[in-house]
């Protein structure tokens, strides 16, 4: 469907999902797999335009999630489904494990409690380590480490290819993905009529997965919002790939009440990231990076892992967590109105998305009632962007390397531009291919990318020349 085409409103969808963040993408897939006729509606020029464009990419176990919470159950269900499907979809799983590091005796005294909670949460592979033991696991750690908890099953994934894979599978099952399409209002009279900037959409059910705008969208649908989004910004620094020689494990702090805190973490792409911060703000869109914070993150990283000192910075970014006034997920099922809200998916959404999707389908109940006819599961095979597995540049006939820092080939870029869901903006192109994401940030390749991506991106890289050249 043409990105700008008007909608007629004549089609009746089984479910309209508002928001193509990681959660909306997973929900679209789950309903499409069940056989539902799905519309995935996103106001941004591409999927992952909100909270989901910037996170730490950790596939959590839930060892530190609140006991017996919905969040814990969904993180574990989501994680399990990811483990089940990632090979089929060619999505990476980097088995890094994590060390919760105590740098003071006071922090060390909390490790027992964390271990206990982890056990109660059903995570068995936990080991309390002395400083020396922890440094045999991760020789890069600073010597002033007091003790650590080794969480063997915390892993790292590709945070952008995963949701894209979910959407691709939904599309292969006939789902409609509407971008640059903002839901402005909705009315329910047995079915939903959603009013958007591109025309009306009719649907039997609606799922609000609007992330940072979850409360606003509930209000637009005519509901009294039951929660208030309070965005919490997280800034990151990404260190050069040289840093990956210094660290293989996720380094977690002993958590405090407010946040999981700053981690030092390998990425699937072979970098090390330091972050995120946790800064409350009112703005739901602007996620700025700030000079002093970034400098402090770099210093923090090399305090914990001294080998990171002097490693150049590749990138900096910031994301907003869709936090609310409460810690827990705000999942609301309004049965009489055929509506489900998946709100306040604050800091574990990448891990729980597939679990949230299962949960939403269960709340809907249509699959059990036999309302949908499911067909065979279409195969989705994602191009691998993870460093740990073969990349396209290592294979023959890739037709030139365009981005030298991330070794992105012309073939990869052309494939993504002609895929069922081509990138809608430069961020989307970067997330799909990694082009321009490396240490030179486009010094060598940006001009070539501008040429290749001409006509595809909502904000093109090159400006219109005077005289229409």
């Amino acid at each position: 469907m043409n990105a700008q085409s008007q909608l007629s409103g004549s089609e009746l969808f089984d479910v309209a999902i508002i928001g193509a963040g990681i959660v909306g993408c997973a929900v679209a897939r789950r309903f499409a797999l069940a056989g539902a006729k799905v519309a995935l509606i996103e106001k941004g020029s591409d999927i992952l335009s909100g909270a989901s464009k910037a996170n730490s990419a950790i596939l959590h176990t839930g060892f530190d999630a609140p006991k017996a919470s919905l969040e814990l159950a969904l993180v574990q269900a989501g994680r399990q489904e990811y483990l089940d499907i990632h090979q089929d979809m060619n999505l990476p799983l980097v088995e890094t494990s994590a060390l919760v590091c105590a740098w003071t005796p006071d922090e060390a005294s909390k490790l027992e409690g964390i271990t206990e909670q982890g056990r109660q949460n059903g995570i068995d592979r936990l080991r309390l380590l002395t400083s020396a033991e922890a440094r045999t696991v991760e020789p890069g750690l600073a010597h002033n480490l007091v003790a650590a908890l080794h969480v063997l099953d915390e892993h790292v994934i590709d945070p952008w290819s995963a949701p894209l894979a979910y959407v691709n599978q939904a599309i292969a099952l006939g789902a409609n993905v509407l971008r640059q399409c903002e839901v402005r209002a909705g009315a329910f009279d047995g079915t939903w009529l959603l009013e958007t900037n591109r025309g009306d959409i009719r649907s039997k059910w609606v799922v609000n997965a609007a992330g940072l705008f979850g409360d606003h969208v509930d209000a637009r649908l005519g509901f009294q919002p039951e929660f208030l989004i309070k965005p919490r910004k997280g800034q990151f620094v990404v260190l050069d790939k040289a840093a990956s020689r210094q660290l293989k494990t996720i380094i977690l702090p002993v958590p405090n009440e407010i946040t999981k805190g700053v981690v030092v973490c390998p990425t699937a792409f072979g970098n090390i990231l330091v972050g995120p911060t946790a800064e409350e703000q009112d703005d739901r869109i602007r996620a700025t990076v700030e000079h002093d914070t970034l400098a402090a993150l770099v210093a923090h990283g090399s305090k914990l892992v001294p080998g990171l000192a002097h490693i150049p910075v590749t990138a900096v970014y910031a994301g907003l967590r869709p936090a609310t006034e409460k810690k827990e997920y705000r999942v609301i099922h309004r049965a009489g109105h055929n509506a489900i809200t998946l709100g306040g998916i604050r800091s574990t959404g990448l891990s729980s998305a597939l679990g949230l999707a299962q949960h939403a389908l269960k709340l809907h109940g249509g699959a059990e009632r036999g309302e949908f006819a499911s067909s065979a599961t279409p195969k989705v095979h994602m191009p691998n962007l993870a460093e740990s597995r073969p990349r396209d540049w290592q294979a023959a006939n890739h037709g030139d390397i365009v981005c030298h820092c991330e070794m992105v080939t012309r073939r990869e870029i052309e494939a993504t531009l002609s895929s069922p869901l081509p990138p809608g903006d430069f961020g989307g192109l970067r997330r799909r291919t990694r082009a321009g994401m490396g240490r030179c940030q486009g010094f060598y390749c940006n001009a070539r990318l501008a040429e290749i991506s001409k006509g595809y991106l909502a904000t093109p890289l090159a400006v219109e020349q005077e005289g229409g050249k």
Partner: protein
Amino acid sequence: MNRSDVIIVGGGPSGVAAAIAMRKAGVGKITLLERERYLGGATRHCGHSPFGMLEFGRVYLGAAYGRRLEREIARHDIDLRYGHSVAQLGEDGELLVANPDGLQTLSAKRVLMTTGVRETTRAARFVTGDRPVGIVTTGTLQAYAAFHNMMPFHRPVIVGSELVTLSAIWTCLSHGARPAAVLEPRSHSLVRAPLNWFPPLMGVPFHRDAQVVDILGRGRVEAVRIKRGDIVETIECDGILFSGGFTPEASLFLTSGLAVDLGSAGPAVDQDGRCENPRYFAAGNVLRAVETGGWAFREGRAIGTALAADLLGDPARAAPTKVTYDAPIKLVVPSLLRSGSALPGGLKDFQLRFQRRVEGTLSLSIDGREVWQRNAIWRPESRIIVPRPNNSTGAQSVHFGFREEV
């Protein structure tokens, strides 16, 4: 496997000059790997600069200079491979190389790294603000204009005051873009003469002591907020160009675990251009930021000459002595010295840079004895040359001292 005598990584002026010098000195199999489809490196997209005066006795613009290098190479028996991107350096001189047919391993008795420089990105500068489209460096702008006849903006704010900043302004003006302002965060521009009059002459305001404190823009850049003294003002623009802040393209050393000098951020080399790992040599701007194309060419030739002589024996075994220096000296090249090696060519002088503008006395001491000194105002990014005494290679200690005038 078909082993080369030398593999050169990078076909800019220094790599090409080294290849030809080694061929003339009788080296057998020379392989030059270049990841692009052309020679000339960074000179290729410099549409304006005069290149080639000293090496070819005539003046070329960037692209023509690159074509001249291609003609020169063609006259010699050199195994030139385009589209070959080196992905990893092995301790023993084995290189992992990507080319359009896939991956291959190439090996040589010696490897010469001539991978040049790039500019510091907005990310590495930690500039506060949004991250919209339209933020580039000079090299990127030049590539838009020279290779694709496109522009990334109409009305950019330009940050920096190095020579390359002039090149950025020139590229804008000659391609229909009008810079909204030129900013230098420091109180002195890094190059003096032209920057004081060129931008104002072209109607572009030039502010010293001006910092970008915020970048605004959702899709594309919409404005920057700058701070001058206590005043914060907003300048509307549709792009930002960060010029200069050159840094050696030494990532292959870093990711392969080979030694990098903390001062220059390039590979540490000795007087012959030889790295800590004696199978590796380096020349051109990868050694330090930043020199002209002509300098890179001559340096490539000199180090190529030394390398050709080095090939007659085994890789050097002597452990290098480190050259030490006081702050605010930023870097010294060569930063290593090896005794017992008296090859032709190589680095006859020490090259220095300062971190900041400072007045005082720079001195060189060998084994505790001062052998050279000079008092001056020293500027960052300006070339400083100190003749390298012959006895420096046998010395226990070689130290650059600095006494600041207060």
